[in-house]
């Protein structure tokens, strides 16, 4: 049978960057890429990022 699930994930991403460098843009692009390349290693599963946004207080 074909199955599907929606998962919510909360990540803490840390690294060095110039003060004015757009860290939200850099890290969201990196996480998309991680999911895209990581999904290839999971045979039989298709993984798509449906939403990805910064959590604010």
């Amino acid at each position, binding site marked *: 049978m074909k199955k599907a699930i929606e998962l919510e994930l909360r990540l803490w991403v840390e690294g060095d960057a110039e*003060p*004015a*460098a*757009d*860290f*939200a843009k850099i890290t969201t692009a990196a996480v998309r890429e991680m999911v895209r390349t990581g999904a290839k290693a999971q045979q039989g599963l298709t993984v798509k990022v449906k939403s990805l946004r*910064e959590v*604010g*207080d």
Partner: protein
Amino acid sequence: MILRRGSAALGALAGCLVIIIMLAALWLILQPRRIANEPLRGLPPAPSAPRRDVAGAPAPASRAAVVATPRLETTPALPSARVFAMRRQAPVSPGFEGCPANGDGGDPDMNALKNRSDTAAWQPVPIDTVLALPWPATTQRRHRERWSRDEMRDVARYEGVPISIEGYLAGGKQSGPESTNCHGADAGFRDWHVWLSPMPGRDRSNSIVVEPTPASRALHPYWTLNRIGHLSQRGELVRISGWLFYDPEHPEQLGKTRGTLWEIHPVMRIEVRRNGQWVPLDAAESGR
């Protein structure tokens, strides 16, 4: 003939009575709504766009609680209309520790306001006045560069006024990394969320979020989250001064962890009431 005239007169009288009763009933029905929609005394008339009709906006019960609060102000407040009509001071935001005033992304115009570090003569405003300030609901969760001219005008009606509010702290915490502070991960680069309430206690549903920033805290080494916590626990009367600021990002918190989207941000001065005097938190704590 006389009888017919008499009955016609009686009919007309009865008709008048019915109309008077209906008008009186209508007046009674409309009376509470008229009061609820009336601008606060001294406030400029509310802008025309929809505002406090947002989901999660404070329930009438919480407004009633504010109205029932004994007056807090130890300093006579100027009429609010005069305070909000003040000529605005251009924000000075030099940046902090290499982080520019606009931050590292997000809403750069909003970040520049959050990062301002200039001071002014803080104008006393009652806490219930700030809790009742309107805002255009259409601006919620939208960056300022996308606001219409009307939306900008409606927010500018109140934003950028140097105010001080008396109340009770309902706790404080360190915020997460954010674009305003260039996503600095260290504690010294994070804002604090502090809640100012009209009543002592831990209830934040009718509170105002007031935020000491990295730049403002750098000038006040005695401001610590521990001291904020102690002031909250002891239910001490405090006076918070800083810039009135509109934060459109968290309408979902209304009625839960805030009573309004208006904030004091940045907080420039914290004072506590000691022996009938306002004492800066720094002096009150360093002298212990």
